[in-house]
């Protein structure tokens, strides 16, 4: 197998401030080009932080990053200044959760796309605008010529997210990061955007990491899934493995909490309790306090990372049997 597009080894992210937050605690991931990885987790599980680390978008002075992180052979954590800016948007780019917030409200959409093309490819404005128009056609923007001259507030939520995707893909990145790109959208638009992202990922042959808290979304777009909890990956496997044969009690809980198959009037299954605060690095299983099948040892020592198949790992003592 060729060298992976993304090679993340034992990544740790710590925020310093009034109190320290151990946001990501030893995450290892690999991704081949052309592959889509879904990261599933609830708010505060470290999934967005992991994604932002790939672009080094976290505030430098308050963030301490450990481990190794290579994208396309490049050591991302060593990048500085102009080299870092070259990496952003060209090698790796990102679709944000809410395009209304992530796009500049006083620039026309076309200019915002052209700006990044001109920055990375040093081409003229008219060439960059032509690229922006191409991208608008790729994302199936209705009346693309006219929309290039629109401001973000003049578009609907779905169109804005299409524009955001066009912006992210304008410089043909090798790795696309999608940070809950459908969370801010209506249900009917969500599925359109999901299908669009999946099609574009195949068409462009790029790697994609898709972060979401919605298990149904993960199933729709991903080849593989990583489930995150308290800054750690607690289970990875193919979509099929995770859906059919979840091993970790947390993943099982997530699947059970899904609304599909819920009976009217019956109480919905929910995982009781709340995630830990992460003010210190976990020394035992972070999920143990909420785990319905926890044992005594779970609260005292870190759980083993058990390989239960090719590319399939579970961080749980129960998986050892």
């Amino acid at each position: 197998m060729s060298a992976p597009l993304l090679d993340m080894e034992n990544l740790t992210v710590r925020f310093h401030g009034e109190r320290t937050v151990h946001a990501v605690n030893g995450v290892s991931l690999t991704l081949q080009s052309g592959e889509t990885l879904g990261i599933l987790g609830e708010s505060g599980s470290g999934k967005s932080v992991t994604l932002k680390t790939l672009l080094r978008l976290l505030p430098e002075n308050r963030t301490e990053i450990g481990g190794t992180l290579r994208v396309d052979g490049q050591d991302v954590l060593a990048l500085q200044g102009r080299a870092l800016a070259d990496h952003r948007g060209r090698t790796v780019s990102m679709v944000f959760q809410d395009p209304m917030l992530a796009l500049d409200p006083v620039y026309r959409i076309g200019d915002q796309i052209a700006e990044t093309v001109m920055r990375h490819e040093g081409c003229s404005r008219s060439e960059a605008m032509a690229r922006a128009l191409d991208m608008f056609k790729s994302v199936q923007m209705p009346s693309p010529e006219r929309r290039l001259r629109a401001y973000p507030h003049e578009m609907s939520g779905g169109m804005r997210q299409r524009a955001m995707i066009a912006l992210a893909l304008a410089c043909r990145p090798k790795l696309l990061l999608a940070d809950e790109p459908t969370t801010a959208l209506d249900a009917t638009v969500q599925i359109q955007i999901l299908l669009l992202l999946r099609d574009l990922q195949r068409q462009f042959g790029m790697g994609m990491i898709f972060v979401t808290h919605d298990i149904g979304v993960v199933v729709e777009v991903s080849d593989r899934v990583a489930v995150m909890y308290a800054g750690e990956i607690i289970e990875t496997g193919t979509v099929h493995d995770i859906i059919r044969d979840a091993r970790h009690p947390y993943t099982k809980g997530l699947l059970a909490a899904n609304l599909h198959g819920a009976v009217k009037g019956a109480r919905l299954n929910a995982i009781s309790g709340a995630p830990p605060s992460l003010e210190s690095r976990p020394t035992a299983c972070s999920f143990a306090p909420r785990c319905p099948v926890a044992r005594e040892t779970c609260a005292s020592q870190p759980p083993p990372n058990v390989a239960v198949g090719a590319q399939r790992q579970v961080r749980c003592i129960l998986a050892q049997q």
Partner: protein
Amino acid sequence: MYIAKRLLYTLPVAFGVSVVCFMLVHIAPGDPLTSVLPPDASAQLQAEMRRLYGFDKPLPVQYFIWLAKTVQGDLGVSIATGRPVALELSKALGNTLMLAVLATLIGFLLGGLFGFVAGYFRGGWVDRLASFISIIGVSVPHYWLGMVLVIIFSVQLNWLPATGAGPGGSADWAWNWLHVRHLILPAITMSVIPMGIVARTVRALVADILSQEFIVGQRAKGLLDFGVFRHVVKNAAPTALAVMGLQLGYLLGGSILIETVFSWPGTGFLLGQAIFQRDLPLLQGTILILALFFVALNLIVDVVQTMLDPRVQRT
């Protein structure tokens, strides 16, 4: 479309302004003719003068006569000097405009710079220094600052003239060093007010813009610092320019103190004279024109803001 609507709105405002200007002057106590007539003037002469200036008619009638004349550009004749108000005013207005525009420009440039730096390096020593300067700018009494500057640069160093708008107290302006050097001290003194306010506004604006997610979005695109800077400036510009426009408006009317300190022959100076001499036509004319200037400036600020900020158009 928006601009046409906005233009239409200024008409009732301008009308209201004219009523208030007229009434204010008439509500104030004192007889306008006492200052020009000798104390022992006969009752007949007083009545004659009253009739001549139209003060014998009922107020509403006086107002409409005044309004009709004003609309035609006739602001009446100054009681004190006997010269047309329009003439006195246009000269003073030119002088004040020059001073106010220069002061606003200096204040805006310095204030924008301090505010931008302070907002960009928020919390650092640069921020504290710039904020300190802007607070001083807002709080220092400017007539006091004017006198201090006069003491330093005119009396001690003898670099710049202390008063007037030209050599030998001439009121005719010319664009040469002999005249321009008269402009420097009052302009610097006056610029301190907008500088402080603009600095504080821009600092808050920049800090707010930098905390928004689209700045992260711009960095994620791979923009360098200068590219991000352009986005910050374009987002901050509409509000910053609006503040600048309003400051220019305040300076146009509110410069009585500074113009008096420097004997600058502008509208403030003229207004001061008109008040002390109870020169009704001059007072009315000056207040009206200054108020209309303010209305017009507001209009311009609004229109420019609409052109700069695409989101304003919708409301």
